[in-house]
């Protein structure tokens, strides 16, 4: 089904069941946060896991998506689905420019360039009038879906967010398992070889980058509709670090890893929020432990144990 193997189909169905059941057990707003970050992490994983491009500035696309969705929903009065589309397009547009610049260098330089470009974007957001500076954009209305269905109720909004997440998840899976995705993996494994086979690898990398940033923008946009707020936190580089952590902890290059990682990191932050800066320290420790002893991540290790690719 959709390029899923049998175990993956089972895991996907399990995930869908969990997405449906969990709002009856856990706080829906927390779950919506998890789903937004899960989509964000899946988008990031599309680059690092399947093209081997380490972007250390994904907060730029997430955050700009968040700002634009918040702005258009509040000031222009767009309906939430249109605001999210605007956020997605913003992520894609910014990704086109930044990606076009960053793919000129490989490896570690790519990471540093994306980080520096995201920092430039951060300073832009700090000064630009439409972002509201330190205050951000607050009290964004949830509005009416398609102008008809009011989203004030958390459960109704949860359904919308779950649909966006599942659609994004399936889209990424489809991209990875398309002929286009096979070329991406070839580039990850051996770029000179892919070039010698006649592929314009830069074009492929740029398209993958834009797809990833568009989905990151969608995740940010959805997040701002859910919480009714877009702030500098969304574009700050610690947000870029967080999405790296989620993906690393869940498992780089696994399908379900980023989702599990997003759940683990968001849950941890929720639990540790009362302890102030210990959140940062804990994140640092998780990074170090993952890199030293746990490079395959939770899902990667599980998949290796069960001898199946999850």
């Amino acid at each position: 089904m959709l390029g899923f193997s049998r175990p993956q189909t089972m895991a996907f169905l399990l995930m869908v069941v969990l997405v449906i059941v969990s709002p009856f057990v856990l706080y829906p707003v927390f779950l919506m946060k998890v789903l937004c970050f899960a989509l964000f992490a899946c988008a990031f994983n599309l680059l690092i896991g399947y093209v081997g491009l380490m972007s250390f500035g994904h907060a730029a696309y997430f955050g700009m998506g968040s700002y634009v969705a918040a702005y258009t929903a509040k000031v222009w009065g767009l309906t939430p689905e249109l605001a999210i589309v605007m956020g997605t397009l913003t992520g894609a547009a910014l990704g086109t420019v930044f990606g076009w610049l960053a793919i000129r260098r490989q490896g570690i330089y790519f990471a540093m360039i994306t980080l520096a470009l995201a920092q430039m974007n951060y300073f832009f957001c700090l000064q630009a009038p439409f972002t509201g500076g330190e205050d951000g954009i607050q009290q964004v209305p949830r509005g009416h879906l398609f102008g008809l269905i009011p989203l004030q109720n958390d459960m109704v909004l949860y359904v919308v967010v779950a649909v966006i997440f599942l659609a994004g998840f399936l889209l990424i899976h489809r991209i990875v398992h398309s002929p286009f995705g096979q070329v991406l993996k070839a580039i990850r494994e051996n770029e000179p070889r892919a070039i010698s086979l006649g592929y314009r690898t830069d074009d492929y990398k740029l398209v993958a980058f834009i797809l990833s940033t568009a989905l990151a923008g969608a995740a940010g946009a959805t997040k701002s509709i859910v919480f009714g707020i877009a702030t500098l936190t969304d574009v700050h580089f610690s947000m870029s670090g967080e999405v790296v952590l989620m993906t690393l902890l869940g498992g780089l290059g696994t399908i379900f890893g980023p989702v599990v990682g997003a759940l683990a990191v968001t849950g941890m932050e929720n639990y540790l929020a009362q302890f102030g800066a210990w959140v940062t320290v804990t994140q640092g420790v998780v990074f170090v432990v993952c890199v030293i002893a746990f490079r395959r991540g939770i899902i990667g290790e599980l998949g290796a144990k069960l001898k199946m690719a999850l």
Partner: protein
Amino acid sequence: MFMILGYPAPLLFGQLLLGLINGAFYALLSLGLAVIFGMLNIVNFAHGALFMLGAFVAWGMLEYLGIGYWWALVLAPLIVGAFGVLLEKTLISRLYKLDHLYGLLLTFGLALIIEGLARNQYGSSGMPYRIPDLLQGATNLGFMFLPNYRAWVVVAAAVMCLVTWLVIEKTSLGATLRAATENAPLVQAFGVNVPRMITLTYAGGVALAGFAGVLAAPIYSVNPNMGENFIITVFAVVVIGGMGSILGSIVTGFGLGIVEGLTKVFYPQGSATVIFVVMVIVLLARPAGLFGRAA
């Protein structure tokens, strides 16, 4: 008051000096990053945190032990360097066979831990550090007042950069180091203890960051975020200069500091982003960096 290009001269020279000071820190930090990258093939994301640690060690020595600035200038880099030895031996050395990426992620995690612990202990506000008596006050140069401490920072950083350059380019130790950067197994075959050399290179690189931290302590308040603010800009500096050349990182560091300072005069809104804009231009015109070789 005389004017240059329609701007009052003291403003222009004042910002130029601030730019030079920032440039001094860019140069010291990017130099350390370049030395470490050359030898270990990892980008040390913890560099900013270790810069901050240098400032905190200096502050702590004065606060708890009564050890003054001049001793701190010697001891703090040694302590940060020793901490670097510990980090390299226990953690970083496990990553040499892996993708560069993991080195970046590990040192990013280390930076989060160091900065998070500092924030827990001392809060985010920052503590003042007194300028040493010898460097109090300012000198009247006729066209501007030059604060003595700021002049000292520029001179000390320039001298330290020059010494590092001389050690690497002109001594036999530096020659061995450069050889090991090019081809470690061959140098090891000549009987050089390469792993120890790698450890000491890392220690040396982070000691430079510690030294920069002590220099910075009296200028900026000693606070847990001081490194975080610098490190990303330093990455842009490294991308602009290319990590291939020692002299290149020194020149680029100072040069970009001056560019930033001048932007504060002519177009203040752009001063935070100007270095990144320069990076974009360099990427378009010379993707390998001003002094870099194509990878």
